């Protein structure tokens, strides 16, 4: 089963309008999956990760139902066919 990213509205300018992106292959970790996403849609990955490769502070990445911020971060291992959601945190003013 392919791994699938859910792309939030503000980033769909960079995903050809797609709300979901399926990755070919089976990335082992979240970092691998983001690399693969970046190869397809660099504009999405560049706005999820900063130029040092860190997840931007107000972005939450969920693998299945778990926010990786409270787990293994980019090293999170991906179950086969999992869904990865990119969600802006409830930050602002």
């Amino acid at each position, binding site marked *: 089963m392919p791994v699938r990213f859910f792309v939030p509205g503000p980033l769909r300018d960079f995903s050809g309008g797609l709300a979901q992106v399926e990755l070919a292959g089976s990335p082992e970790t979240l970092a691998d999956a983001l690399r693969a996403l970046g190869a397809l849609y660099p504009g999405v990955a560049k706005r999820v990760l900063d130029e040092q490769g860190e997840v931007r502070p107000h972005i939450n990445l969920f693998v299945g139902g778990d926010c990786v911020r409270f787990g293994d971060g980019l090293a999170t291992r991906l179950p086969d066919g999992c869904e990865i959601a990119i969600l802006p945190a409830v930050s*602002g003013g």
Partner: protein
Amino acid sequence: MDLPKAKPLPARDGDVLLLVGTMKGAFLLRSDRSRRGWDSSGPHFPGRSVYAMGYDGRSGRRRIWAAPASMHWGAELCASDDFGRNWSRPETPRIAFPESAGVALKNIWQIEPGRDDEPDRVFCGVEPSALFESRDGGETWSLNEGLWNHPHRARWMPGGGGLCLHTILTDPERRDRLTIATSTGGVYRTDDGGKTWQARNHGIQAYFLKEKDPEFGQCVHKVARHPSRPDTLFLQHHFGLYRSDDGGDTWREASKGVPSDFGFPMVVHPREPETVYVVPLKADQFRCPPEGKLRVYRTKNGARSWKPLARGLPQEDCYDTVLRDAMSADAEDPAGVYFGTRNGRLYGSRDEGESWSLVADDLPPVTCVRAVSVRRAAASRAKKRGRGRRAA
């Protein structure tokens, strides 16, 4: 969630444009030379803060630059060549620190076209404090390593807005000279095209530092100068107005006549090198107009004396604030002067500051204002090019 796109605002030769950055997007305003009425467009980049905007009218361009920043998705540099109808927004943001720098871009604070005879050079000042430069009109950018590797940098400290490089002054007479200011850190100048930089803060007092005359660490809020007199600089410090007549080598205080020497913006008149505008605020602990009266102060004699300009501005119980880049002058005659406030008001004067009126109200907090005389910019470029050819 598709955000609405703002309508474009095509400008014609002779129009005056106001580029207004706010905490929740950018707005464009246009008037003819009378500046009696304004059309507006916006918000562009709704929901994003825009701390820097710029206009590049060199080499036939009519390019508006804007630096929208999202708390979520980061900061980027966008350009429009059709007055806001389309904004170019590359997949890979134009400005990013190299991996070796070990930091990530937080915000873009300044967009400054280079000299007229180097029409493809553009500069950006960013947070954390650093200078980026493009030599291809803004498509690709590189970090100025000389400033980034300066030994002082580790001891620069962020001000209330962050550790930002907010002022970039090219020198019309010396190609290799560039002056920047960072808060805090102070004024730095290169005379070798950016390879090496020297602190230029001699004479600027900083009560928050122990030293009497510190080499660096000053909290410079803004530096301004007239292009015809590049060695005469005016500076708004955290406390204190200063003037330099030697390109920043030495500074002397020039605060006589203002009700407070604290404030942020500093703007030089488009034709009169000794005419300067500031907006005093009570103090760093209370960043509101003294006595609740919003007043612009203007000197016409190079900061020997200052005169309040209050007609049309609120003179009772005003608790508004004008940030460092939220004031600008157009190139018309008489000059138009404009400023935006944190309470979302945009004021304008079309008589050089003698009287003011609201240009726009109920905007988000205003972070930057840039006034552009569309035709005038083109005419002056052609004139300068002609002069340059004759001189050569």
